[in-house]
């Protein structure tokens, strides 16, 4: 019996893949390392290496097979693991760099392009292991290629750990300084979260949360190009119609992710976790979230109206995607990284977009200040204050927020930094010249907000 799909629908799908950059951005295997704990760090490393290279040995091969069968590219195959601060808490070693190197070696062995989970969750306070991990981050990122680190410093339930925020200001800066030869690439692999999610498949913030199973496969779909073309087709439509069009498009994009994820999980023999239906831009032309906002009628992203446009886009993407998958999770929404989005880069270069507007946009987007290059002489306290602002937005609005800024050593406003590949390039953005030192140095915790009286 012939299938009941019309030619128009077949051509629409093919067009999405061929000319609108529809792809599965990542399939990420989450692996629990909780059973790898031991007081001897060498034993821990040994167990971690064996476990990852066993579970993930076919991840890349099967990812490629599934991509071939459906004709839809899977760009990245990745691994997320239990936050290493938990796994290593029993270790007597003074630092955990050795574990980062083991993760790196395992990632290289199985052929994935990133491994996330050199992480600690310290929203309320730090254990000795948490602090050792955080202090190990700069060296760990400098001496590895594939490892990504993240630290959760706040939550709507716990408040913001300002001691951790202050420490992370120093860690971000040191991570950039130790990788000065690659323009601070270390801090491009480090995310500071508030309300971090446990099943995020996207890097650099992926880790395998403590509520997750032994092993799981999560999928991150993308498709800014597909949404962009759909929006461009109706230049004068009112917002109701625009929202509906974006929902329909997000639905189709997410369906492809659901299919590919389920099939890959089946062939790997691991449970399927969630589809993260984020619009994740790439530096490729036409694969830009900024372009979608501009297609809605803004001359340049960053001008007045940008926050409203992004809020509407983010919500419509979630609504369409939620219908398409039985389990939606992760970050799910629109990402607004600067260096990875050609439209955002242009807006910064043309002086339309500044850090303050980006901060406002993070109130309604899915994550936060992402891939933003700032002057190398920005103080650790200023970076900590930027983190505190973002964490406050997340804490009050009960959403995930994050900071991934790169204080590029030796560069100042007006310079440009090139990270290459999916990380793209970025003009250095200005930060406020006034000091936040005394504020940051207070330490302690900002109390959790009241969860009623919501006005």
């Amino acid at each position, binding site marked *: 019996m012939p*299938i009941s*799909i019309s030619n128009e629908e077949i051509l629409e799908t093919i067009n999405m893949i061929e000319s609108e950059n529809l792809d599965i951005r990542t399939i990420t295997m989450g692996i629990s390392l909780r059973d790898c704990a031991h007081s001897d760090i060498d034993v821990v490393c040994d167990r971690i290496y064996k476990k990852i290279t066993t579970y993930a040995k076919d991840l890349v091969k099967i990812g490629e097979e599934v991509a071939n069968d459906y004709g839809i590219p899977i760009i990245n195959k990745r691994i997320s693991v239990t936050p290493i601060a938990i796994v290593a808490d029993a270790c007597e070693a003074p630092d955990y760099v050795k574990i980062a190197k083991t993760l790196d070696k395992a990632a290289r062995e199985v052929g994935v392009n990133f491994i996330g989970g050199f992480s600690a969750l310290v929203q309320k306070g730090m254990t000795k292991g948490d602090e050792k991990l955080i202090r190990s981050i700069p060296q760990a990122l400098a001496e590895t290629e594939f490892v990504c680190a993240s630290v959760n410093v706040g939550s709507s339930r716990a408040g913001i750990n300002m001691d951790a925020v202050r420490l992370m200001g120093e860690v971000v800066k040191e991570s950039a300084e130790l990788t000065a030869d690659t323009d601070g690439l270390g801090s491009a692999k480090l995310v500071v979260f508030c309300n971090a999610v446990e099943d995020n498949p996207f890097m650099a913030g992926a880790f395998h949360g403590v509520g997750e199973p032994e092993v799981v496969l999560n999928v991150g779909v993308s498709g800014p190009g597909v949404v962009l073309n759909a929006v461009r087709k109706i230049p004068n439509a009112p917002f109701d119609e625009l929202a509906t069009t974006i929902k329909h498009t997000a639905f189709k994009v997410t*369906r492809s992710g659901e299919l590919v994820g389920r099939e890959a999980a089946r062939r790997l023999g691991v449970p399927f976790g969630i589809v993260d239906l984020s619009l994740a831009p790439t530096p490729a032309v036409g694969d830009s979230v900024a372009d979608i906002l501009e297609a809605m009628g803004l001359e340049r992203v960053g001008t007045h109206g940008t926050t409203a446009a992004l809020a509407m886009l983010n919500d419509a993407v979630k609504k369409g995607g939620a219908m398409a998958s039985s389990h939606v999770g992760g970050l799910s929404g629109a990402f607004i990284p600067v260096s990875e989005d050609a439209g955002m880069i242009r807006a910064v270069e043309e002086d339309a977009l500044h850090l303050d507007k980006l901060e406002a946009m993070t109130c309604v987007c899915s994550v936060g200040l992402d891939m933003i290059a700032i002057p190398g002489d920005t103080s650790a306290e200023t970076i900590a204050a930027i983190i505190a602002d973002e964490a406050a937005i997340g804490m009050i609005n009960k959403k995930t927020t994050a900071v991934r800024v790169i204080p590029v050593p030796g560069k100042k406003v007006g310079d440009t930094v090139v990270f290459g590949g999916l990380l793209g390039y970025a003009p250095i953005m200005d930060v406020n010249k006034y000091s936040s030192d005394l504020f940051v140095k207070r330490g302690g915790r900002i109390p959790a907000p009241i969860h009623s009286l919501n006005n």
Partner: protein
Amino acid sequence: MENNTNKVVVTVVGKDKKGIIAAVSTALTEYDVNILDISQTILQDFFTMIMIVDMNEANVSFTELREQLGLLGQKHGVVISCQHEEIFQYMHRI
């Protein structure tokens, strides 16, 4: 093949259609791939052919078929792609 269904959608997109239907059909016959449905249209000056084929009795793997048809397309100056029909079902039907 582990999939329940072995239906594949073959699409051919190109400027010139001379000889292309014959070439693709001949290749598919050689591989024992059964053509279930065939349709063609002109889309923005581009000749577009969509074939639904059944690979149950095929003597090549899906990957091989994909590669061979890709090469055939290059020879004729058209783009030939092969995809399992599931992707279309999934994307357009609930």
